[in-house]
């Protein structure tokens, strides 16, 4: 097998990605379909929230992914800055749009859920607010990638932005907490204190989370490979020009 860094070689990565991708995709589709169907059709309503509790199967996995995708980008950015493995930088680039969509899903499902639960689409609750800020970070990150032609320059700049941004994201989270006490649920995976009720909801929820994670892995493999191919195409065209 050798060291993990071998996969930082684009050729090797493409090869492996090609082999792994179908399986991950099938796994992602299967778990997502099972989890969502289970959650949507075969769970009872919550006694307080009624049927809206079903939204949790989308909302929580998306919210978790939104944060973790950024975290993954932070790690790959550091790897790029320290070891200068192109695949690592491209993986960060590939992950960002997925992260944005996850953030948007969390925001939209949250907003839709908030309407019946809190009587408003949007409140300046700390958790909601920090998600909005995360969304802005994603937008800025993607815009910076788009704005620069030279791929290595873009990789360097976005990597630094990602790191500085992470520090500020943590700061904002603290600031926002200080600024407003919220309406949002605390971070525990149980809706009610009684164990038995929670179980009913939590098994499909775990399946959905697994599905989102698998989907993310599949998408990142696919998109990273796309980015690698785009760069190769660009390099080859440039080479043709040299004659």
């Amino acid at each position, binding site marked *: 097998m050798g060291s993990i860094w071998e996969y930082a070689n684009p050729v090797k990565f493409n090869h492996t990605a090609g082999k792994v991708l179908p399986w991950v995709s099938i796994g992602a589709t299967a778990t997502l379909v099972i989890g969502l169907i289970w959650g949507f059709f075969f769970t009872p309503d919550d006694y307080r929230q009624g049927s809206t509790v079903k939204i949790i199967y989308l909302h929580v996995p998306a919210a978790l992914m939104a944060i973790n995708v950024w975290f993954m980008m932070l790690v790959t950015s550091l790897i790029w800055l320290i070891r200068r493995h192109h695949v690592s930088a491209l993986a960060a680039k590939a992950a960002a749009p997925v992260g944005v969509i996850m953030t948007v899903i969390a925001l*939209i499902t949250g907003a*839709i859920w908030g309407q019946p639960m809190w009587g408003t689409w949007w409140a300046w609750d700390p958790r909601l607010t920090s998600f909005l800020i995360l969304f802005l970070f994603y937008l800025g990150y993607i815009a910076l990638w788009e704005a620069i032609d030279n791929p290595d320059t873009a990789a360097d700049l976005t990597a630094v932005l990602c790191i500085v941004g992470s520090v500020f994201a943590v700061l904002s989270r603290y600031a926002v907490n200080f600024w407003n006490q919220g309406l949002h649920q605390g971070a525990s995976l149980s809706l009610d204190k009684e164990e038995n009720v929670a179980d009913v909801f939590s098994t499909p929820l775990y399946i959905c989370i697994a599905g989102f994670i698998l989907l993310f892995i599949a998408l990142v493999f696919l998109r990273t490979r*796309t980015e690698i191919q785009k760069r190769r195409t660009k390099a*080859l065209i440039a080479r*043709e020009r040299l004659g």
Partner: protein
Amino acid sequence: MIPDLGKYADTVLSAYGASIVLLVALVWWSLRAARKARIELEKVEDRRNG
């Protein structure tokens, strides 16, 4: 078939609808970009090899 969602049917359905549309769009967009990149690359490789 659809379970009884009570008075929150709109809420739940629109949340599922919006999320699934976004997820499908993301996947579709990624696949399309992948296909485009592959075709481009093959074109260039062919030109180079033959």
